[in-house]
């Protein structure tokens, strides 16, 4: 090696390491990552206790990793490399052509079984009819799109186990698989699309014996509100090369009163919060995202009945349809609402209770236990 050449190689090495260090020092710290949907670590507070326990140094490592320049770019590069050597699974997400499908891991069997029991316990507690609606995820409905041999937990077997309970079922599996060739799930997000939610709505109406009152698709004026939706699977897989999803609103927002309890007190809101359409988390445009309790009243149909839905986020896009057929839809999220659902139903003159969850959420959610009280 000549001296000049050695110098060049040395310079390259030092420039990369030192350059990235300088860059990350000069880059202003970010408080939050939209793509990862979490707050990022900040420089840890120093104390002798934190130092000797190792907490301080751990904090520094988290800080450096979280504030690393171009985080999302690096993850994208990794995903591309993996794709190049034939991988089709990225952080628990399968790349299936132009679609991302979340792998469903085998859940804790006792929890999965117990959660069914809690719904039955609710049915025992109340005189109202309690319907169980479990929404199979894309990994089940679109299982033929998965790479050959790729594993995903058998949701159908679980739906059959759910059918063994005495609870009347909402047949989401039937409604969705009948339309499996349509865009019923987002390609970059784990939720169902507005179209998927519409088929979900028909399943709810059928189960409640109101099949003849189902509003036909032609009654809705479809509005494309975004064609740049990059959802949760885009984030977790690191696959950033797919065409973004299109998001639609179908049901009209008129003639409804939407009351949200986000922080204990009631606030008048609407079916859609269009502010979210300019953000990363566009799915939250439906009902404005997470909240313990939301009540939608439709004065145009005073005798439409009152439905209580115990639910996860799939119901954010289902609720606009339900609101067109019920005089009141009460949406209760057990992650934030821990009081008795049976008592709530009684106090609010509810006619029927539907427990509606996507299967992967239902079998892993620790909060279903609150139904039994």
């Amino acid at each position: 090696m000549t001296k000049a050449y050695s110098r060049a190689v040395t310079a390259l090495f030092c420039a990369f390491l030192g350059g990235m260090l300088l860059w990350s020092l000069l880059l202003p710290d970010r408080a939050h990552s939209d793509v990862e949907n979490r707050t990022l670590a900040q420089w840890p507070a120093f104390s002798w206790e934190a130092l000797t326990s190792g907490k301080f140094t751990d904090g520094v490592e988290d800080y450096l990793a979280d504030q690393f320049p171009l985080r999302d770019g690096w993850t994208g590069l990794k995903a591309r490399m993996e794709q190049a050597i034939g991988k089709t699974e990225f952080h628990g997400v399968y790349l299936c052509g132009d679609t991302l499908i979340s792998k469903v891991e085998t859940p804790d069997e006792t929890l999965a079984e117990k959660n069914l029991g809690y719904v039955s316990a609710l049915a025992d507690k109340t005189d109202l009819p309690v319907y169980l609606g479990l929404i199979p995820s894309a990994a089940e409905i679109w299982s033929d799109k998965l790479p050959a041999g790729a594993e995903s937990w058998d949701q159908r077997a679980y739906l059959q186990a759910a059918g063994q309970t005495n609870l009347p079922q909402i047949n989401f599996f039937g409604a969705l698989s009948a339309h499996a060739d349509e865009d019923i799930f987002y390609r970059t997000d784990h939720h169902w699309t507005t179209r998927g939610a519409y088929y979900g709505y028909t399943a709810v109406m059928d189960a409640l014996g109101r099949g003849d009152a189902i509003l036909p698709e032609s009654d809705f004026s479809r509005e494309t509100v975004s064609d740049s939706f990059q959802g949760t699977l885009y984030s977790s897989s690191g696959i950033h090369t797919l065409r973004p999803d299109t998001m639609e609103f179908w049901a009209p927002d008129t003639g409804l009163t939407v009351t949200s309890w986000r922080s204990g007190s009631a606030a008048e809101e609407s079916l859609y919060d269009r502010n979210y359409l300019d953000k990363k988390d566009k799915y939250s445009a439906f009902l404005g995202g997470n909240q313990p309790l939301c009540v939608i009243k439709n004065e145009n149909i005073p005798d439409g009945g009152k439905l209580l839905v115990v639910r996860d986020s799939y119901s954010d896009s289902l609720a606009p349809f339900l609101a067109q057929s019920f005089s009141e839809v009460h949406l209760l999220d057990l992650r934030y609402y821990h009081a008795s659902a049976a008592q709530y139903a009684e106090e609010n003159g509810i006619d029927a209770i539907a427990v509606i969850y996507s299967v992967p959420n239902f079998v892993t959610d620790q909060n279903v236990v609150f139904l039994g009280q």
Partner: protein
Amino acid sequence: MVFSSLTFLFGFLPLTLAVYFLTPLKWRNLTLLIVSLLFYGWGEPVYILIMFASIAIDYVHGLLVEKHRHDDKKARWFVVQSVIFNLLLLGFFKYWDFFAVNLSLIPGVNLPVLGLGLPIGISFFTFQTMSYTIDVYRQDAPAQRNIVTFGTFVTMFPQLIAGPIVKYKTVAAELDHREHTTENFALGARRFCVGLAKKVLLANSIGSLWDSALAAQSAGTLTVLGGWLGLIAFTFQIYFDFSGYSDMAIGLGRIFGFTFDENFNYPYLAASVSDFWRRWHISLTSWFREYLYIPLGGNRGGVGKTLRNIFIVWLCTGFWHGASWNYLLWGLYFAVLLVLEKYVLSNVLKKLPRMVKHLYTLFAVVVGWGLFAMEDLRQCGSYLATCFGGGNGWSGSDFYTLKSYGVLLVILVVASTTLGKSLWQRLPERPQKIAAPVLMALALVVCTAYLVDGSYNPFLYFRF
């Protein structure tokens, strides 16, 4: 702190290099000592105290051995003291719980399990400091009078936590006088990049295949094919992990002007198990040979004594790897194979075609990794039973695994052979000169992507 982390690559290393090369020559050992202590204390700050104790005690013993050079009995006694101290240190932190659990099985014995965290690198640095007093006693190296220099030897961060085990005599001269040239820096940096790529891109990637085989085993869905794929994955993982780490250590050492011995020599090309052990973790095998096997008498005391020595050395080698029965079993397994090769198979092996010898060796080594990889003997037994026919032949998901990891496996096979090296050497000088920095830059960029991705932790189920 590990080398393959963002904190090391983009924090510790550039800062250390800057400080080290700005320090005047005279003070560079002190700088290296201080940064090494910081490196060591990063994960477990309290354990720096062990480091101080180890430096002080072995430093004093080295001087004592030299002082009593002419009174062999006394000199020996100080060597023994230092060895006992190091073994007690290692024994207490690494093996206490193992003995407590197993001895408490005897009625009437009840030892408490302490659950102490293992100080990083303790197996390596205790072995290095033992070599110091022994080398001084054997007059292979003079005692180190400067405690800073001695401290630098004990704590030197490039090889502190995962070897290679550097014998004192190898670096004694360089500790006092070493050359810092840009050529050494460039070659060291290049070697570091090779090691980083082996660890981050190869070892970590194939590691997930081994993890999924283990998961399949605990779910009861492991097949024969899946079992072997898992073992092969672990075989590659441990080699590229460990040899990558050694490469990084050797490269970093070179940047700071040290020449460490090679630790691996294409072990999976070995033609017999004894050949394998001449190529795998060379610094450990040679340590045991030099400081245990030969002092015990080696193979010079007849068949009986040789057998005894082989079994002692290999049980120790196994136990050195971890405080658990499976490591002892693993050591025993190799002792048996080595004895068989020495006394029974040597004539048979000579006559066999090369290919058969390689296959036999690989088979023995892969099965050995099976013993090594699973500390829970029951799990280990049932995993290996599946591999040897106690399960379904294959399943659809095995083919998915093969498709997902096929390219990587081919890369790993090629990277385990000398093919890459000989192709590289056949390259004319000019293209070589251009390709080397390009590949280095590429390795750094891609490794960074993999490391950042490893810290990438989307919190998506916040909203289901």
